[in-house]
């Protein structure tokens, strides 16, 4: 058992070399990166971060990512849970057709829709805008979220809702005051799955956000890397900046993230 433990720890350390390399080389001079990739820097070059922070417009890019992720995810949660509530509690052919139609979209790869999506977004006047990409994420996020909410609501007995209804609550009161709190486990799962996806997504921002002011972190990092190829010390500092927010999010939320992934995968 001890041998297994030691072997696994060594493997895990090797597994982490790429992250270590990224952080350490972002703190070196260009010369140090080229001569000895693995070594620690003589002097930690924190000014690399200052340079990259400005060149990348990191604060602006970071805010774009936050705004897009927060509004996309909360919209997906609200729209999907509301629809799932009525689709489960009002069974019938209409609910079945709507549910199956939305569900079947899960097999369509994004690449099939992306070419006309650019045209549709242009026609709707939502291309190259932050709110436009948020609306697009609502659309793409609904199938999985609705599916997960649908399954969860089916397992909740309706007695509480009926009692509230007899006490004179309307459908909105029942949904927001009674049902929504009961949905919090699945809400956490859906929120985490969609946050990781939207925060890290690259292709949709690439084709719909052309102006530099609207870029998200992955898109800005990709553009920066293209411009500064071979300035490895700055490149690594930029990548370190790009992974810090998601690492912090992960460290605080890791219990929920792992639970969410497990629940999402088993049901998906």
């Amino acid at each position, binding site marked *: 058992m001890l041998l297994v433990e030691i072997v696994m720890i060594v493997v895990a350390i090797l597994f982490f070399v790429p992250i270590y390399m990224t952080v350490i080389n972002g703190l070196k001079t260009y010369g140090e990166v080229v001569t000895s990739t693995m070594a620690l820097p003589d002097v930690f070059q924190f000014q690399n971060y200052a340079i990259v922070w400005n060149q990348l417009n990191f604060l602006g890019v970071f805010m774009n990512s936050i705004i897009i992720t927060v509004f996309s995810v909360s919209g997906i949660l609200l729209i999907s849970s509301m629809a799932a509530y009525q689709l489960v509690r009002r069974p019938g052919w209409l609910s079945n057709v709507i549910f199956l139609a939305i569900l079947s979209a899960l*097999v369509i*790869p994004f690449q099939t829709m*992306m070419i006309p999506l650019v045209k549709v977004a242009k026609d709707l006047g939502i291309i190259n805008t932050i709110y436009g990409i948020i609306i697009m994420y609502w659309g793409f996020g609904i199938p999985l979220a609705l599916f997960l909410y649908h399954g969860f609501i089916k397992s909740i007995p309706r007695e509480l809702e009926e009692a509230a209804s007899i006490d004179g609550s309307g459908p909105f009161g029942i949904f927001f005051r009674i049902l929504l709190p009961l949905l919090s486990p699945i809400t956490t799962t859906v929120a985490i799955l969609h946050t990781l996806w939207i925060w890290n997504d690259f292709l949709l921002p690439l084709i719909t956000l052309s102006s530099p002011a609207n870029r998200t972190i992955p898109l800005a990092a990709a553009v920066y890397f293209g411009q500064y190829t071979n300035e490895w010390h700055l490149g690594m500092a930029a990548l370190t900046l790009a992974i810090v927010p998601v690492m912090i999010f992960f460290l605080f939320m890791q219990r929920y993230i792992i639970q969410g992934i497990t629940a999402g995968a088993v049901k998906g």
Partner: protein
Amino acid sequence: MNARARRAFTYTVFVAPALIFFTLIIVVPFLRAILFSFQDWNGISPVIGWAGWDNYRNIVRDSGFYRSFAFTAKYVIATTILLNVFAFLLAMLLNMPLKSRNVLRTAFFMPYVIGSVIIGFIWQFIITQLFPDIGEATQWSLFLKNWLSLPDYAFWALVLVTVWHSVGYYMIVYLAALQGVPSDLLEAAEIDGAGRWRQLYNVIFPLIRPAMTINLFLAISNGFKAFDLNFALTEGGPFGTTESIALHIYLDAFTKNLFTYGAAKAVLFFFILATISIVQVGTMKRREVEL
């Protein structure tokens, strides 16, 4: 308003937003993709012409499409096998009562939360800067080669990075399944004289089959849809040998302005992927057992 009308009103208010955004963002572009695949347009000109079946006829003669399809198929097979083998091994080992198992689980999962584009650039650095250093120090020919400029090496670089990036996710799914295997069943099997391999084949594998179905499905569909890593690590090179279908379609549509031709490939891609997914999940679901 009577009760019936009120119920219809509530239903509409709750369901309509989902239906509207779903239609606008998914249904319309999807149908439009099918329409585009029969048209002839560069994405810019004011008139959209008709192509009939020409786009599809041209795909049949398009060596670039075949090449990217062959690459993607090879990539899907390699990543699906390696991801599942390593994830299952890790899950088995980290299901043992190790002191550090929680930290280790977190460590192996961690790369997954970083986006693939960022991962691609990190590994571009590792492969072009660190590998030659290792090569010089050890004189191993494996590391003395320039991986990203040799087709076979570039292919395995993509596979390696994919496995490194996602193995933790698949491991989590297997771990969850392994924790659902009752230990008294394994004890009973042991008392009946079943060795470790027999227990694995006759008890563990059948019980974790749902996790296998999911992991195979995810590995296959993610493999077919691979784009970000491809874009960041090899850009499809050297000489287009590592161009995934997704990257190929993207390049056709957005850099070569073959808007409708790309759409036809994308529609074909949908049919291929949907067929494979349905067949795989269908066959595996039938072999699952309920406890």
